[in-house]
């Protein structure tokens, strides 16, 4: 479904160039959930932005749903691939009603039955029709993220790119949104790429994952291997230790992997 080969992204030129992604490759089968894990600056979000066409400056080979992707993406691409962003406070237009936010993709793609689609989309993400004419500021963070999911799904895409979809939410709301995403995936047979810094979220949502550090994939593994604490790369092991809570003794053994990458 998704094939990434030797993807590199850099910003700036010459000596000031920053190589955000350095030649990474992975593939995701149809119906799979694939996790990209890493700390800030590891390049995980940049991979997603290159895939979604938000970042046109990349090199390598990208393939999605059988199509080789170019710099420019057409409307048909966006009907297949949609994205949900991290911050539901920033990703919804503050002066548009939910109705208008959801109607826009329908209008752009010239789809029929806007009214029915909007009601159905709201219903599917667990928001009733009473939310339809509200503004984003009248909604809680979790409700806003549901709207963002509804907006992504209203075009009936095959692939959803999720960029830290729950990290701005409280844990109880996170659980609701994660459950929603899992239910929708089964119902609609979607393929997910989930970017997160939270190993537990990725372990819960995905089947396989890649760990990134400084623009490179240090290790790719199945979630079962992660659970069995089988990762071999010291960076993954450190991330795993850190995710399990505060341990004074372990912290002194932490290394800085920035320099070696």
């Amino acid at each position, binding site marked *: 479904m998704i094939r990434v080969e030797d993807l590199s992204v850099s910003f700036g030129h010459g000596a000031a160039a920053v190589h955000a992604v350095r030649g990474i490759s992975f593939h995701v089968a149809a119906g799979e959930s694939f996790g990209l894990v890493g700390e800030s600056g590891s390049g995980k979000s940049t991979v997603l932005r290159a895939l979604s066409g938000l970042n046109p400056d990349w090199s390598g080979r990208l393939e999605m749903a059988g199509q080789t992707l170019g710099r420019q993406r057409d409307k048909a691409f966006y009907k297949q691939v949609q994205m949900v962003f991290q911050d539901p406070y920033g990703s919804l237009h503050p002066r548009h009603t939910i109705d208008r936010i959801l109607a826009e993709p329908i209008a752009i793609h010239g789809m029929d039955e806007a009214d029915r689609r909007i009601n159905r989309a709201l219903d599917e993400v667990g928001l009733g029709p009473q939310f339809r004419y509200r503004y984003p500021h009248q909604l809680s963070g979790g409700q806003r993220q549901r709207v963002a999911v509804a907006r992504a799904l209203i075009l009936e895409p095959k692939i959803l790119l999720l960029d830290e979809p729950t990290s701005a939410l409280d*844990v109880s709301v996170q659980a*609701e949104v994660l459950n929603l995403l899992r239910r929708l995936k089964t119902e609609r047979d979607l393929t997910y790429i989930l970017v997160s*810094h939270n190993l537990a979220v990725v372990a*819960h*949502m995905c089947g396989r994952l890649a760990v990134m550090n400084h623009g490179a994939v240090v290790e790719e593994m199945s979630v079962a291997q992660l659970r069995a604490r089988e990762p071999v790369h010291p960076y993954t092991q450190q991330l795993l230790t*850190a995710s399990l809570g*505060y341990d*004074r003794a372990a912290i002194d053994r932490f290394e800085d992997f920035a320099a070696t990458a």
Partner: protein
Amino acid sequence: MTQNPLLAVEDLHVDFATPKGLVEAVRGVSFSLGREKLGIVGESGSGKSVTGRAILRLVRPPGRVRAKKLEFDGTDLLGIDERAMRQIRGRHISMVMQDPKFSLNPVMTVGRQIAEAYRISGKGARRETKRRALEMLEAVRIRDPERVYRAYPHEVSGGMGQRIMIAMMLIPNPDLLIADEPTSALDVTVQLQVLAILDDLVTQRGMGLIFISHDLNLVASFCDRVLIMYGGQVLEVCDAKRLNEAKHPYTRGLLDCLPRIETGSSADLPVLRRDPAWLDQGI
């Protein structure tokens, strides 16, 4: 050192009069703190941050703070005037906020800001100040303190900015540090390294620490005791080591809805069902 607790809070209330009516952010919170690490855990809107601010009297009008008792080391914090309060802020109680981007002055070098914090505490000549500031930067594990001393906040990373904040708050050698989500903007490994610094300071200097966070796992593994807040009240107090044996359905619900690396992922996460009765169950 006295037998009395470092901080005693009894029946603390914080209200905000808004056009839509009175919002009671904190409703009768009581706790006492010794020279230990106390965690305050809650979701957004639970009143945990307002509690921290109320202790330092940083709640601005229309917010109103009332308490039967708000005593720090024998001083009644609600009874003293603003002048006396300024003597306490920074010098005896200081606070680290969540985001270094908004808490550091962007047009002042890091060194000057730390030096200012030190001078306000009323000691030291200029040369001495700089030496202390560099020492403090080293204590929070900044590798090149001379460079960071001369740098502006935008020239350092988020993790470093947070360490600078902590250095600045610790240089007057306070008795009590209130840390409001001090590490939630940081990567996990950096987060733990910053906590290790705080931990060592509590152990070595006998400082009291109030650690406000939404992260139950982190608090359970880091603090000595935990207060669980909900709707402006404390629902439960437990030993951090025994958080897993917590009894209140809210605490249980919060623990259960966390995804975990170890367990299988076939089932949906349990969803927290809120009981309106919890709002009147504060202790």
